[in-house]
């Protein structure tokens, strides 16, 4: 059964992408995810300069999912250009993920990292646990979302995705701002919170940064609602992300309006082969309900409301 989909110009063999921040440190990891069924990959976010990130503990698992404060560790744009080479031969589109401290830095990142190898770019305005970036720097307001999107748009012709925070409310306004700035799609959503976990034996926060972004099953219903709201307020394609663990989670996001999904924390529960598993589960669902393609379910919840 055909489960191909598209995000504007970007065509995908299947609707599952590796989410940014999970595994995507090296080209080898992307290759591994694609061999395990990923329809595409988003690399771990790259900044202008090398960043070691926060001290560990960086990631914990709690009852509802994962919580992380990695702090954007990455080798910086020059090293990243050496790492992410020959991407076209990987057999699935690779999406760059860029971060910046301000509008100018996002523009500089786009100019430096994007030419040549990547199929699209995801700009992240929504990390909840890194000072100077994302929500901690106010990049998630509609005004800043629009100005950052515009600045990147001027530097690249690649499909431009804006990754937004579930904590930016009303989220439809942020999506509209990205649309006004020239984005091609919305990635909804980043981790939520931040949250906090305390070791009750010692009273110490467990994450070294004390607070961290919450992902996994606990985020899923919030992500579904965000996608639903965004679809109501703007026409851009949506890539759903947040707690996709089973095929049913991806289907739910698509009914809310997503054209594809990203998977990150799900790898913790179902291994790297989660991409294959989710795709099979989506196919089984479509067959069981006599749907002929993903087009039958994308935005279904909105269609039946009318």
């Amino acid at each position: 059964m055909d489960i191909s989909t598209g995000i504007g110009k970007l065509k995908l063999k299947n609707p599952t992408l590796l989410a940014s921040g999970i595994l995507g440190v090296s080209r080898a990891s992307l290759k591994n995810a694609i061999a395990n069924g990923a329809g595409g990959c988003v690399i771990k976010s790259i900044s202008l300069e090398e960043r070691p990130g926060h001290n560990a503990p960086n990631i914990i698992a709690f009852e509802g999912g994962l919580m992380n404060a990695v702090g954007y560790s990455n080798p910086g744009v020059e090293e990243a250009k050496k790492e992410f080479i020959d991407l076209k031969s990987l057999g699935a589109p690779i999406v760059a993920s860029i971060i910046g401290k301000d509008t100018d830095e996002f523009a500089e990142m786009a100019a430096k990292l994007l030419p040549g190898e990547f199929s699209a770019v995801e700009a992240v305005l929504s990390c909840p646990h890194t000072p100077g970036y994302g929500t901690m720097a106010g990049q998630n307001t509609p005004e800043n979302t629009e100005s950052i999107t515009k600045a990147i748009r001027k530097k690249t012709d690649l499909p431009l995705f804006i990754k937004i925070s579930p904590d930016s409310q009303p989220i439809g306004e942020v999506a509209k701002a990205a649309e006004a700035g020239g984005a091609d799609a919305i990635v909804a959503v980043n981790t939520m919170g931040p949250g906090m976990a305390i070791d009750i034996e010692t009273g110490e926060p467990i994450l070294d940064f004390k607070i961290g972004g919450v992902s996994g099953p606990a985020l899923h219903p919030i992500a579904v609602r965000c996608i639903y709201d965004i679809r109501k307020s703007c026409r851009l394609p949506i890539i759903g992300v947040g707690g996709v663990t089973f095929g049913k989670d991806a289907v739910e996001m698509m009914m809310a309006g997503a054209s594809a999904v990203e998977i990150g924390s799900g790898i913790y529960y179902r291994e790297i082969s989660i991409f294959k598993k989710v795709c099979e589960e989506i196919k089984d669902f479509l067959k069981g309900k006599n749907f002929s393609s993903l087009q039958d379910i994308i935005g279904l919840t909105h269609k039946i409301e009318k």
Partner: protein
Amino acid sequence: MERPLGTIEKPKVLPISKIIVENERVKTFFFNIEWETRPGQFAILWIPRVNEKPFCISHNENGEIGFTICHVGDFTHKLFDLKVGDPVGIRGPYGSWFKTENDYKTILLAGGGYGVAPLYNLAKSLEKKDIQIHFCNGARTNKQLLYIKQLKQANVSLHISTDDGSQGQKGTVIDTAIKCLEEDKIDCAYFCGPELMEKKLVELCIKKNIPSQVSIERYMKCGFGICGQCCLDDSGDRMCQEGPVISGIKAMQHSEFGKYHRNKSGVKQYYENNQTKKL
């Protein structure tokens, strides 16, 4: 490894139950914890407000897990200040392990510096089996040799080397290991130490058609297979899940083995060619 929804993975804070001073820069820290572990596996230790780091498990006896740790950086500096009863977070066990087959009659264990820790654990786990063990134990100088007393009492053929000749044969563990590989019929060889040493010995084993296993240490942030920091080029295998112990043949299929590793930022760090001299 698949995990059920709701899985919790956080450090469990326990008091240090015992500390053994092994030598001038190495101590073994023990915790009372009932774990099923295998030689070569590791755990992650947390000192609140300092950091969290992976260490291989060197002891697991009578409900006590031990880690033989070398004083090398900021984290171990803090750890070495701790006393019995002080709290440390611990999570694990993680990773693959050294595997032995029933038909192995003679095996070789070669460890450089504190790389002997998991091999000591392996030797102890085989104590009751009818298997001959050559144990090559090397360090820069006699003061840095580990477990010599215990290994002398154990049922192993011990081959000691020091760079300065202060104890055992003058030279490195590569020299003593090569001698064993040349002189005895080895069914499988196990290596842990500086990567250039591991690579040199694996190359020799492949040439002689002797199976080998190596432990590959990589920077890691989660330990449970998702951060991507410890993945090898070009397979993407995670050294916290598919590793740290992999076969020598598999190690040689990786372009980065014996060549470079990635640091906390993900920048490649190339091994110096004289690394083997730093045992």
